[in-house]
């Protein structure tokens, strides 16, 4: 396993190469508060291409910003930075990473060759509309990573269902893939229920999803 440092605005991200291979790379996006695992998860080993994992801002071996300011859109920028390094890829996201994978599939439809959504921490976010306004002040003494600001802010980011489906529709329209999204999750927050009901999203098993995207150009 090797790693490279990538610059995204003022953050230094760490992209881990978990396994070599030939063919299109697979990019793994971890869940809220997690980091890239030490080795490629066994459920992904049927993939023939190289497998990469990105540590999001404030997580794992990536740098920790001062004073928070996290958004899921900002993490989409993290994932886009990884994509620029490895080229067109199929993306597997867990929890928060699954939501980011959806955003990235809509924002970079030519470069994301399928997004696979898995259960994981931070899948629900802050729900479909804002809750009671609050100002999270994480304990400054808490040691990270993960950055306590990331945990406080990204567990609270609002994910309206129609916002999520707009990204999927854009992926359908511009990726040339009939099925840019595979939903392999048991948990169904509202944004994901809406997305899973759209044409272009298929509920399936991760093995099947990997086979499907390995075959698309």
């Amino acid at each position, binding site marked *: 396993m090797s790693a490279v440092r990538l610059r995204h605005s003022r953050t230094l991200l760490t992209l881990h190469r978990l396994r070599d291979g030939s063919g299109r790379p697979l990019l793994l996006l971890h869940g809220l508060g997690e980091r890239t695992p030490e080795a490629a998860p066994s459920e992904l080993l049927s993939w023939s291409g190289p497998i990469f994992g990105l540590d999001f801002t404030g997580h794992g071996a990536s740098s920790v910003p001062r004073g928070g*300011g996290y*958004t899921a*859109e900002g993490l989409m920028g993290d994932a886009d930075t990884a994509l620029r390094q490895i080229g067109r890829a199929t993306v597997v996201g867990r929890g928060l990473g699954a939501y980011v994978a959806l955003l990235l599939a*809509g*924002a970079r439809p030519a470069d994301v060759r399928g997004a696979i959504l898995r259960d994981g921490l931070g899948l629900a976010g802050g729900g479909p509309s804002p809750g009671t*306004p609050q100002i999270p002040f994480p304990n400054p003494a808490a040691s990270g990573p993960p950055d306590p600001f990331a945990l406080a802010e990204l567990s609270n980011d609002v994910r309206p269902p129609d*916002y999520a489906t*707009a990204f999927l529709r854009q992926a359908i329209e511009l990726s040339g893939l009939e099925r840019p999204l595979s939903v392999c999750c048991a948990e169904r927050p509202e944004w994901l229920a809406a997305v899973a009901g759209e044409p272009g999203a298929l509920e399936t098993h991760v093995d099947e999803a990997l086979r499907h995207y390995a075959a698309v150009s």
Partner: protein
Amino acid sequence: MDAALTAEEATAARHPCARRPDRQRFVSCHGLRLAVCEWGDPGAPAILLAHGGFDFAGTFDVFAPLLASAGYRVVSWDQRGHGDSDHAELYSWEADVRDMLAVVDSIGPEPVVLVGHSKGGAISTHLIQAAPHRVRAFVNLDGIPSHKPPPDVADHERTRLLARELSGWLDHRQAAATKVRKPDTLDGLARRRQRMNPRLPLEWLRYLASIGARKDPDGWRWKIDPALRPGGFGPWRAVWSMSRFASLPVPLLGILATESEPMGWDTRADDVRPYLPPRARVMELPGVGHFVHIERPKEVAELTQGFLAELR
């Protein structure tokens, strides 16, 4: 100032009605340094002014002294990435509100009066809802979002999902680390800013440039973080803010612009009335644009004083 001023620049830096703050200090919010400034008697009741997106505290250099001479301690700060505050790694609405609370805490234990313009009005609204015990009264200066997406609110604040907008934003993020602003003369900066502020006189914009920009060997550059980008997209919608206005537990005066312009929010009193809490007042200033406190500093200061006097 970082370098000697030419005679022309020195003239620009002297505006007949503007007065630089009496005191300047810094507040550290979780490692981020925020520039705070004050006008008036430090023992007087405090008013905190919140500037709009892509502005800075110096935009209150005419308005704040008027309130200070009416017997208030007037405080303002540069939001992260703006004016003399640190350029941050990340920017978000929530982070701006948290920074604002750090500034409120630095003023003292007593509740303060908030006056917020544009985005500053919107983050003030959020702060009041999250920490009502810290606020005594609220004056909102053309900072009530209604139907039109606010143009001076960055990044995650919109629902437009044009492919071009998304890829443009991502491309900007990649370039942001190394981006530097274009150098220009003070006059050049003022004229460029006038495209977004068409109703504001050049004399004022030259003054703003003289305090909001720094003089490098190759010319003047705005101090604002080049990583910030107007516009954007995101899950936020105006109706969420608007419907929560009804819950505000503090006395409220809303002063709205009526002249449409690029940075304006185009909210009218009739849009707001159904969402006002009891005893709140919202009014329109005929013939005035988005920067109500810059176009009519005296009138807006008098309205603010009158409103606060009624609370005593």
